[in-house]
Protein backbone atom coordinates (compact mmCIF):
# COMPACT_ATOMS: atom_id res chain seq x y z
CA UNK A 1 0.00 0.00 0.00
CA UNK A 2 2.86 2.34 0.74
CA UNK A 3 4.36 1.69 -2.68
CA UNK A 4 1.03 2.53 -4.22
CA UNK A 5 0.71 5.85 -2.42
CA UNK A 6 4.32 6.88 -2.82
CA UNK A 7 4.69 6.09 -6.49
CA UNK A 8 1.29 6.91 -7.86
CA UNK A 9 -0.47 9.44 -5.70
CA UNK A 10 2.60 11.59 -5.22
CA UNK A 11 2.59 12.48 -8.89
CA UNK A 12 -0.87 13.97 -9.13
CA UNK A 13 0.16 16.37 -11.92
CA UNK A 14 0.73 13.37 -14.16
CA UNK A 15 -2.83 12.15 -13.64
CA UNK A 16 -4.33 15.51 -14.53
CA UNK A 17 -2.50 15.41 -17.85
CA UNK A 18 -3.57 11.83 -18.49
CA UNK A 19 -7.23 12.66 -17.81
CA UNK A 20 -7.15 15.64 -20.19
CA UNK A 21 -5.44 13.56 -22.84
CA UNK A 22 -8.01 10.80 -22.62
CA UNK A 23 -10.90 13.27 -22.82
CA UNK A 24 -9.47 14.69 -26.02
CA UNK A 25 -8.77 11.22 -27.40
CA UNK A 26 -12.35 10.11 -26.81
CA UNK A 27 -13.61 13.27 -28.46
CA UNK A 28 -11.58 12.69 -31.60
CA UNK A 29 -12.67 9.12 -32.17
CA UNK A 30 -16.13 8.58 -30.79
CA UNK A 31 -18.02 11.78 -31.54
CA UNK A 32 -20.08 12.34 -34.66
CA UNK A 33 -20.08 16.07 -35.09
CA UNK A 34 -17.05 17.37 -36.97
CA UNK A 35 -16.66 20.49 -34.82
CA UNK A 36 -16.53 18.35 -31.69
CA UNK A 37 -13.71 16.35 -33.22
CA UNK A 38 -11.72 19.52 -33.80
CA UNK A 39 -12.28 20.62 -30.21
CA UNK A 40 -11.10 17.19 -29.01
CA UNK A 41 -7.93 17.64 -31.05
CA UNK A 42 -7.29 20.98 -29.34
CA UNK A 43 -7.79 19.51 -25.86
CA UNK A 44 -5.35 16.71 -26.69
CA UNK A 45 -2.72 19.16 -27.87
CA UNK A 46 -3.14 21.30 -24.75
CA UNK A 47 -2.54 18.28 -22.52
CA UNK A 48 0.66 17.45 -24.42
CA UNK A 49 1.96 21.01 -24.06
CA UNK A 50 1.33 21.03 -20.32
CA UNK A 51 3.14 17.73 -19.88
CA UNK A 52 6.19 18.88 -21.79
CA UNK A 53 6.56 22.07 -19.78
CA UNK A 54 6.08 20.14 -16.54
CA UNK A 55 9.20 18.15 -17.33
CA UNK A 56 11.33 21.27 -17.12
CA UNK A 57 10.15 22.79 -13.85
CA UNK A 58 12.45 23.21 -10.88
CA UNK A 59 11.16 23.44 -7.34
CA UNK A 60 11.77 26.94 -6.03
CA UNK A 61 12.79 28.32 -9.40
CA UNK A 62 11.78 31.67 -10.83
CA UNK A 63 10.90 32.81 -14.32
CA UNK A 64 13.75 32.55 -16.84
CA UNK A 65 14.79 36.20 -17.11
CA UNK A 66 18.38 36.95 -16.15
CA UNK A 67 18.71 39.49 -13.38
CA UNK A 68 21.73 40.44 -11.27
CA UNK A 69 19.89 40.50 -7.95
CA UNK A 70 18.45 37.04 -8.41
CA UNK A 71 21.87 35.56 -9.18
CA UNK A 72 23.33 37.20 -6.11
CA UNK A 73 20.64 35.83 -3.84
CA UNK A 74 21.18 32.36 -5.24
CA UNK A 75 17.81 31.45 -6.71
CA UNK A 76 17.31 28.82 -9.38
CA UNK A 77 15.93 29.28 -12.85
CA UNK A 78 13.40 27.00 -14.49
CA UNK A 79 14.48 25.28 -17.66
CA UNK A 80 13.79 27.60 -20.63
CA UNK A 81 14.22 24.96 -23.34
CA UNK A 82 10.69 23.44 -23.20
CA UNK A 83 9.17 26.93 -23.36
CA UNK A 84 10.96 27.61 -26.64
CA UNK A 85 9.86 24.36 -28.24
CA UNK A 86 6.26 24.72 -27.09
CA UNK A 87 5.97 28.24 -28.56
CA UNK A 88 6.54 26.74 -31.96
CA UNK A 89 4.12 23.90 -31.26
CA UNK A 90 1.35 26.30 -30.24
CA UNK A 91 1.61 28.15 -33.53
CA UNK A 92 1.46 24.85 -35.44
CA UNK A 93 -1.69 23.95 -33.50
CA UNK A 94 -3.32 27.26 -34.44
CA UNK A 95 -2.49 26.71 -38.11
CA UNK A 96 -3.90 23.17 -38.03
CA UNK A 97 -7.13 24.34 -36.42
CA UNK A 98 -7.58 27.09 -39.01
CA UNK A 99 -7.21 24.71 -41.97
CA UNK A 100 -9.49 22.12 -40.31
CA UNK A 101 -12.23 24.69 -39.75
CA UNK A 102 -12.10 25.85 -43.36
CA UNK A 103 -12.41 22.20 -44.47
CA UNK A 104 -15.52 21.85 -42.32
CA UNK A 105 -17.04 24.92 -43.95
CA UNK A 106 -16.46 23.45 -47.41
CA UNK A 107 -18.01 20.14 -46.40
CA UNK A 108 -21.05 21.95 -45.10
CA UNK A 109 -21.37 23.79 -48.39
CA UNK A 110 -21.18 20.51 -50.35
CA UNK A 111 -23.34 18.13 -48.32
CA UNK A 112 -25.51 20.38 -46.17
CA UNK A 113 -24.72 18.62 -42.90
CA UNK A 114 -21.88 18.25 -40.41
CA UNK A 115 -22.72 14.86 -38.87
CA UNK A 116 -20.27 12.23 -39.97
CA UNK A 117 -22.77 9.38 -40.28
CA UNK A 118 -25.05 11.33 -42.61
CA UNK A 119 -22.11 12.28 -44.81
CA UNK A 120 -21.09 8.63 -45.11
CA UNK A 121 -24.68 7.70 -46.07
CA UNK A 122 -24.75 10.35 -48.76
CA UNK A 123 -21.40 9.26 -50.07
CA UNK A 124 -22.37 5.63 -50.33
CA UNK A 125 -25.62 6.50 -52.11
CA UNK A 126 -24.03 8.88 -54.54
CA UNK A 127 -21.30 6.75 -56.14
CA UNK A 128 -18.96 9.69 -56.44
CA UNK A 129 -16.87 9.78 -59.62
CA UNK A 130 -13.96 12.21 -59.92
CA UNK A 131 -15.11 15.37 -61.65
CA UNK A 132 -12.82 17.68 -63.56
Amino acid at each position, binding site marked *: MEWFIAKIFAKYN*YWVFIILMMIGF*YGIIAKDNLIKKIIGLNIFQTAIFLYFIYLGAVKGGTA*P*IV*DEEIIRKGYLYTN*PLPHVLILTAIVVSV*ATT*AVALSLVIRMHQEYGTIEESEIIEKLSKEKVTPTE
Partner: protein
Amino acid sequence: MNGLRIFTIILIILLCALFIYVAEDIPVFGDRDAPPIKAVTLFTMEVDQVVSFLDQQIVPEKLSKELVKRGFPPPSRIEKITGIGIEWNASILKEEPHYAKEERYYWIKKEGDKVRVSRYAFVVRWIEKGLEETSVPNMVTYGLADYRGYDTLGETTVIFTAGVSVILLLRRRSRL
Protein backbone atom coordinates in the same frame (compact mmCIF):
# COMPACT_ATOMS: atom_id res chain seq x y z
CA MET B 1 -22.16 4.05 -33.39
CA ASN B 2 -22.31 1.90 -30.30
CA GLY B 3 -19.52 -0.31 -31.52
CA LEU B 4 -17.15 2.59 -32.00
CA ARG B 5 -17.78 3.94 -28.50
CA ILE B 6 -17.21 0.59 -26.85
CA PHE B 7 -14.01 0.12 -28.84
CA THR B 8 -12.82 3.57 -27.79
CA ILE B 9 -13.52 2.94 -24.13
CA ILE B 10 -11.63 -0.36 -24.21
CA LEU B 11 -8.70 1.37 -25.93
CA ILE B 12 -8.70 4.11 -23.29
CA ILE B 13 -8.65 1.55 -20.48
CA LEU B 14 -5.70 -0.24 -22.08
CA LEU B 15 -3.82 3.04 -22.50
CA CYS B 16 -4.47 4.01 -18.88
CA ALA B 17 -3.09 0.67 -17.75
CA LEU B 18 0.03 1.38 -19.82
CA PHE B 19 0.38 4.82 -18.23
CA ILE B 20 0.07 3.35 -14.73
CA TYR B 21 2.77 0.83 -15.58
CA VAL B 22 5.10 3.58 -16.78
CA ALA B 23 4.39 5.96 -13.88
CA GLU B 24 7.35 4.75 -11.87
CA ASP B 25 9.95 6.19 -14.23
CA ILE B 26 8.51 9.66 -14.50
CA PRO B 27 10.87 12.04 -12.64
CA VAL B 28 9.70 13.70 -9.46
CA PHE B 29 8.40 17.18 -9.89
CA GLY B 30 11.07 19.83 -9.71
CA ASP B 31 14.12 17.69 -9.17
CA ARG B 32 17.21 19.87 -9.39
CA ASP B 33 19.55 17.15 -10.63
CA ALA B 34 17.29 15.60 -13.22
CA PRO B 35 18.94 14.83 -16.60
CA PRO B 36 17.30 17.54 -18.69
CA ILE B 37 18.32 20.22 -16.21
CA LYS B 38 21.80 19.41 -15.00
CA ALA B 39 23.76 16.45 -16.37
CA VAL B 40 23.46 13.08 -18.09
CA THR B 41 25.51 10.18 -16.76
CA LEU B 42 27.81 8.60 -19.33
CA PHE B 43 29.73 5.86 -17.53
CA THR B 44 31.59 5.05 -14.31
CA MET B 45 35.24 4.13 -13.86
CA GLU B 46 37.49 2.77 -11.14
CA VAL B 47 38.94 5.24 -8.68
CA ASP B 48 42.66 4.60 -8.61
CA GLN B 49 43.20 5.01 -12.32
CA VAL B 50 42.17 8.62 -12.59
CA VAL B 51 41.95 10.43 -9.25
CA SER B 52 45.66 11.05 -8.83
CA PHE B 53 45.85 12.60 -12.29
CA LEU B 54 42.76 14.70 -11.72
CA ASP B 55 44.07 16.15 -8.49
CA GLN B 56 47.15 17.47 -10.26
CA GLN B 57 44.96 18.89 -13.04
CA ILE B 58 46.41 16.70 -15.81
CA VAL B 59 44.10 14.98 -18.28
CA PRO B 60 44.34 11.22 -17.66
CA GLU B 61 44.87 8.97 -20.67
CA LYS B 62 42.31 6.36 -19.70
CA LEU B 63 39.57 8.95 -19.46
CA SER B 64 40.32 10.32 -22.93
CA LYS B 65 40.41 6.85 -24.43
CA GLU B 66 37.07 5.87 -22.90
CA LEU B 67 35.44 9.04 -24.09
CA VAL B 68 36.77 8.78 -27.64
CA LYS B 69 35.67 5.14 -27.78
CA ARG B 70 32.11 6.23 -27.11
CA GLY B 71 32.22 9.04 -29.66
CA PHE B 72 32.70 12.09 -27.42
CA PRO B 73 35.45 14.73 -27.82
CA PRO B 74 38.42 14.35 -25.46
CA PRO B 75 38.88 16.95 -22.74
CA SER B 76 41.68 19.47 -22.76
CA ARG B 77 41.69 20.98 -19.28
CA ILE B 78 40.62 19.93 -15.81
CA GLU B 79 39.76 22.16 -12.91
CA LYS B 80 38.50 21.39 -9.47
CA ILE B 81 35.18 22.64 -8.13
CA THR B 82 35.35 24.13 -4.65
CA GLY B 83 32.59 22.79 -2.51
CA ILE B 84 31.53 19.98 -0.28
CA GLY B 85 32.02 16.95 -2.55
CA ILE B 86 34.99 15.81 -4.60
CA GLU B 87 34.18 16.99 -8.12
CA TRP B 88 35.98 18.24 -11.19
CA ASN B 89 35.01 20.10 -14.35
CA ALA B 90 36.55 19.10 -17.67
CA SER B 91 36.48 21.46 -20.64
CA ILE B 92 36.95 20.93 -24.34
CA LEU B 93 38.18 23.28 -27.05
CA LYS B 94 35.71 24.42 -29.64
CA GLU B 95 36.19 26.30 -32.85
CA GLU B 96 33.60 28.97 -33.27
CA PRO B 97 33.95 32.22 -35.19
CA HIS B 98 34.55 35.06 -32.76
CA TYR B 99 34.00 32.86 -29.72
CA ALA B 100 36.91 30.42 -30.04
CA LYS B 101 37.00 29.57 -26.36
CA GLU B 102 36.81 26.42 -24.38
CA GLU B 103 33.57 25.09 -23.05
CA ARG B 104 32.85 23.35 -19.77
CA TYR B 105 31.60 19.98 -20.93
CA TYR B 106 32.09 17.09 -18.49
CA TRP B 107 31.34 16.67 -14.80
CA ILE B 108 33.44 14.13 -12.94
CA LYS B 109 32.36 13.13 -9.46
CA LYS B 110 33.78 10.69 -7.00
CA GLU B 111 31.22 8.53 -5.23
CA GLY B 112 32.71 6.06 -2.80
CA ASP B 113 34.43 3.44 -4.88
CA LYS B 114 33.69 4.68 -8.35
CA VAL B 115 34.17 7.82 -10.39
CA ARG B 116 31.11 8.92 -12.33
CA VAL B 117 31.58 10.84 -15.58
CA SER B 118 28.63 12.78 -16.90
CA ARG B 119 28.04 15.40 -19.54
CA TYR B 120 26.44 18.73 -18.76
CA ALA B 121 23.06 19.33 -20.37
CA PHE B 122 23.03 22.01 -23.05
CA VAL B 123 20.73 24.19 -20.99
CA VAL B 124 23.52 24.91 -18.50
CA ARG B 125 25.48 26.87 -21.08
CA TRP B 126 22.29 28.52 -22.25
CA ILE B 127 21.50 29.82 -18.77
CA GLU B 128 24.97 30.86 -17.73
CA LYS B 129 26.43 32.48 -20.81
CA GLY B 130 23.38 33.88 -22.54
CA LEU B 131 23.48 37.42 -21.19
CA GLU B 132 27.18 37.77 -21.87
CA GLU B 133 26.93 36.47 -25.43
CA THR B 134 23.79 38.21 -26.59
CA SER B 135 23.11 41.06 -24.10
CA VAL B 136 19.39 40.22 -23.95
CA PRO B 137 18.00 39.32 -20.53
CA ASN B 138 15.08 37.15 -21.60
CA MET B 139 16.21 33.53 -21.95
CA VAL B 140 13.27 32.41 -24.06
CA THR B 141 13.68 35.23 -26.58
CA TYR B 142 17.34 34.69 -27.25
CA GLY B 143 16.67 30.99 -27.40
CA LEU B 144 13.98 31.46 -30.05
CA ALA B 145 15.58 34.10 -32.22
CA ASP B 146 19.32 33.49 -31.88
CA TYR B 147 20.30 30.00 -30.81
CA ARG B 148 17.33 28.39 -32.56
CA GLY B 149 16.81 30.85 -35.37
CA TYR B 150 16.23 28.23 -38.05
CA ASP B 151 13.27 26.78 -36.18
CA THR B 152 11.61 30.16 -36.03
CA LEU B 153 12.13 30.68 -39.75
CA GLY B 154 10.35 27.40 -40.46
CA GLU B 155 7.67 28.38 -37.97
CA THR B 156 6.88 31.62 -39.77
CA THR B 157 6.71 29.67 -43.03
CA VAL B 158 4.17 27.29 -41.45
CA ILE B 159 1.83 30.05 -40.42
CA PHE B 160 2.17 31.76 -43.79
CA THR B 161 1.28 28.48 -45.52
CA ALA B 162 -1.77 28.06 -43.30
CA GLY B 163 -3.04 31.51 -44.27
CA VAL B 164 -2.53 30.83 -47.97
CA SER B 165 -4.26 27.44 -47.81
CA VAL B 166 -7.30 28.93 -46.07
CA ILE B 167 -7.56 31.46 -48.91
CA LEU B 168 -7.30 28.67 -51.49
CA LEU B 169 -9.93 26.52 -49.81
CA LEU B 170 -12.56 29.17 -49.29
CA ARG B 171 -11.84 30.89 -52.60
CA ARG B 172 -12.78 34.46 -51.98
CA ARG B 173 -13.86 35.73 -55.36
CA SER B 174 -15.63 38.94 -54.46
CA ARG B 175 -14.26 41.79 -52.45
CA LEU B 176 -16.75 43.02 -49.90
